[in-house]
């Protein structure tokens, strides 16, 4: 279970659908690992507006590391912003090259979202307390039929 996935998962129990406590699920007894993944800044900039930053901060606290409290601001990247760095270096509003500061933020996001994995552990719903097991990085989201 990557942190990226955890940021999109909420409790699947029917009674929890309307409860704000059902997201994010809280990690328990988590065992972490790092798995190298190719760096993809375009995807990250595409994902950033959709991330629930508060939830990400909570999850990372539970896993024992800290993130800035506020969502980092990034200009929306497009394929042309990478072409621009190799080209004549002409910087304009939307096609500008990635700054050093932004690059650092992107690398940080990449490390947290893409490369950090929970190998073993549990995820617990804050509303109903249902425990979803994580075994060999695969989260078990099968529900007993009375909870569907």
């Amino acid at each position, binding site marked *: *279970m*990557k942190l*990226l*996935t955890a940021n*999109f*998962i*909420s*409790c*699947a129990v029917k009674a929890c659908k309307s409860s704000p406590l059902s*997201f994010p699920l809280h990690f328990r007894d988590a065992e972490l690992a790092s798995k190298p*993944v*190719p760096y*993809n800044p*375009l*995807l990250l900039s*595409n*994902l950033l507006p*959709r991330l*629930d930053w508060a939830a990400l901060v909570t999850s990372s606290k539970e896993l024992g590391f800290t993130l800035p409290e506020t969502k980092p601001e990034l200009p929306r990247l*497009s*394929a042309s912003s990478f072409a621009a760095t190799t080209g004549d270096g002409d910087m304009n509003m939307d096609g500008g090259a990635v700054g050093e500061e932004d690059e650092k933020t992107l690398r940080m996001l990449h490390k947290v979202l*893409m490369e950090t*994995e929970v190998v073993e552990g549990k995820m617990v719903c804050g509303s109903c307390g249902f425990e979803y097991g994580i075994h*060999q*990085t*695969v*989260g*078990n*989201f*099968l*529900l007993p*039929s009375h909870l*569907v």
Partner: protein
Amino acid sequence: MSRPEDNLPPDLFYNDTESRKYTTSSRIKNIQASMTNRALELLGLETPSLILDIGCGSGLSGEILSEGDPSHTWIGMDISPSMLAVALDREVDGDLLLGDMGQGLPFRAGSFDAAISISAIQWLCNEDEKGVDPKTRLSRFFDSLYACLKRDGKAVCQFYPRDDKQRDMICSAAIKAGFGAGLLEDDPETKNKKLYLVLTVGGEGNKDITGVVKNMDGVDVYDNRKKLLAKAKGEAKQGTKAWIMKKKETDRRKGKVVKSDSKYTGRKRSIKF
């Protein structure tokens, strides 16, 4: 042709031996790869995106997603633990979840850019246990899929319906969930025919489902909606003279006593009365 759907529920059918057989068969690999490529073509994603793979199995379809250009990131969900174990052995790039799509997808709203599903959703039509209603499972699946895709999102589901009835059941469940839906059939009338259910979620780029295939070669469009609309128009509106005449005619045919028609039939009384 035997259908695996007829034997056992998916989590039991794809056991360790069956999963390995499925993943090592070069024939299945080729078919899966070509279907995934077709699905990607239909999705038409230009930027690296986050894709949900429903019924990802051992990651045969996922591999294509991460290898393609641009390279996408995917999250896979499957009900068979053995299939997922094979996927782990093969060290696929996507994140995996064990889950039942018929119970609804456990994602928050607007999570994914797109979703694909290769040879999976026909399993939803199975009635394996007592008290399991395929219709409920289908609507739970499509409702949650609709919610977890972002606006302007698309989903392509390749599936093998048993017959036309099953195909229509799946399509109508998708339309009921709010999707704009279309069916694409590759190699029609042959043994290798493949059905793709193309689904779109509102938004600017997705106003009309036929827009998905506009720039593709060799695709004929049959628009069923106009026919349905014309049929609806052909039926007389309740309360109109035509409607009353039709009613009287049916009653007369049944042998009931019906007042004779005159120029006053179906007219409003004047206010004076």
